[in-house]
């Protein structure tokens, strides 16, 4: 009854109007979720998770087909392009820290990137997930715009990758601070690299709550991990044939 009414309602509004409305809808839901997170600061209230659940729930409830939503909203996500270029600014600002800690960051991120590919593909195989899903999982530790581009390149599904990246970030800020205690990481370099490599932008936001040094090193690690991933993931993937990919 209710659903029939909603279907009628969404049919009555012209498709173009809905497409245009998808931008203010996304922006306002995101702004509201951000405000809620600032009030309580609870990891599961992470604005990324809450706004994704709310927005996806709303589209399903309104029976709005995704392409119709995306017809308008793709303008918003096209800003991911200049945002990736913008990573050059923190990289430039903290070039001294990058140079000072180059061996530690370089070695840590190399191990992390290799581990990301091996464990994603290996565990996906163990769990009995399909080949396409495994390929979409491989780039999930790096920041979304780059992860989606890498997924496309290695034969994964960029949309699934975008969701996996966000799941990685949210799970990462849940286990990351706990891991730094278990492993007794005392240096800001270790803690920052852990958060930036493991949980990209979402982890970096959390790393700034640990300290400004941790945050800076995390943002550096995130950018360098993305650059390394672009080169390493397509190189490593053929070797993974041995484990699982056909």
């Amino acid at each position, binding site marked *: 009854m209710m659903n029939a009414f909603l279907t009628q309602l969404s049919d009555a509004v012209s498709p173009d109007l809905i497409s245009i409305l998808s931008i203010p809808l996304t922006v306002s839901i995101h702004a509201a979720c951000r405000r809620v997170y600032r009030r309580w600061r609870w990891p599961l209230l992470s604005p990324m998770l809450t706004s994704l659940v709310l927005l*996806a729930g709303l589209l399903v409830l309104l029976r709005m087909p995704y392409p119709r939503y995306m017809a308008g909203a793709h303008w918003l996500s096209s800003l991911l*392009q200049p945002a990736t*270029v913008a990573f050059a600014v923190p*990289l430039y600002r903290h070039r001294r820290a990058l140079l000072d800690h180059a061996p530690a960051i370089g070695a*840590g*991120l190399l191990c992390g990137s290799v581990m990301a590919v091996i464990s994603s593909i290996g565990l996906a195989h163990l769990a009995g997930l399909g080949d396409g*899903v495994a390929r979409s999982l491989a780039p999930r*530790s790096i920041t979304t715009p780059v992860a989606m581009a890498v997924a496309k390149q290695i034969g994964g599904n960029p949309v699934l990758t975008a969701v996996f990246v966000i799941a990685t970030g949210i799970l990462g800020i849940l286990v990351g601070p706990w891991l730094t205690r278990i492993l007794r990481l005392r240096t800001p370099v270790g*803690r920052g690299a852990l958060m930036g490599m493991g949980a990209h932008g979402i982890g970096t936001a959390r790393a700034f709550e640990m300290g400004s040094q941790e945050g800076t090193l995390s943002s550096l690690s995130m950018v360098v991990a993305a650059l390394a991933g672009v080169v390493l993931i397509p190189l490593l993937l053929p070797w993974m044939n041995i484990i699982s990919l056909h």
Partner: protein
Amino acid sequence: MRIAVQTARCLTKAARIATRAARIALQTALLWLLAAVCNRVATALHVPVPGSILGCAVLFLLLLFRVVPLAWVEAGADWLIAQLLLFFLPPAVGIIQYPALIRADGWRLLLVILTSTALVMAITGAVADAITRRRQRRAHPLAHQALTGRRSG
């Protein structure tokens, strides 16, 4: 008289906000242009690197060699990075196209992502931390000993 002063103050504030918005918009457009050019170049030269990443490297070099002053891109870049999560949302919402996958494999996917993320974090953090501590010990043996209360090996 007082009303005039208040109006003037209000107007200057509005003007300041408008200037800032205009600066962010202009710099964002500049970064967008750079990304678009690098996308074209990457496609034309068959470089297997996303254009936006190429753009990031190019902008870093331009800043490093002072071809582009930081002030030209700073405000726009800071704004874009602060809003990054918002730009992720539309592609992530695409998950609603795969209800069957979530129903069938959702828990297994979550478990794989959790385990893999923990492994990636542990190895990255442990390696980076070990190298940093070793370098600190070598550079300042006494300071390190005093800080940690341990004799370094």
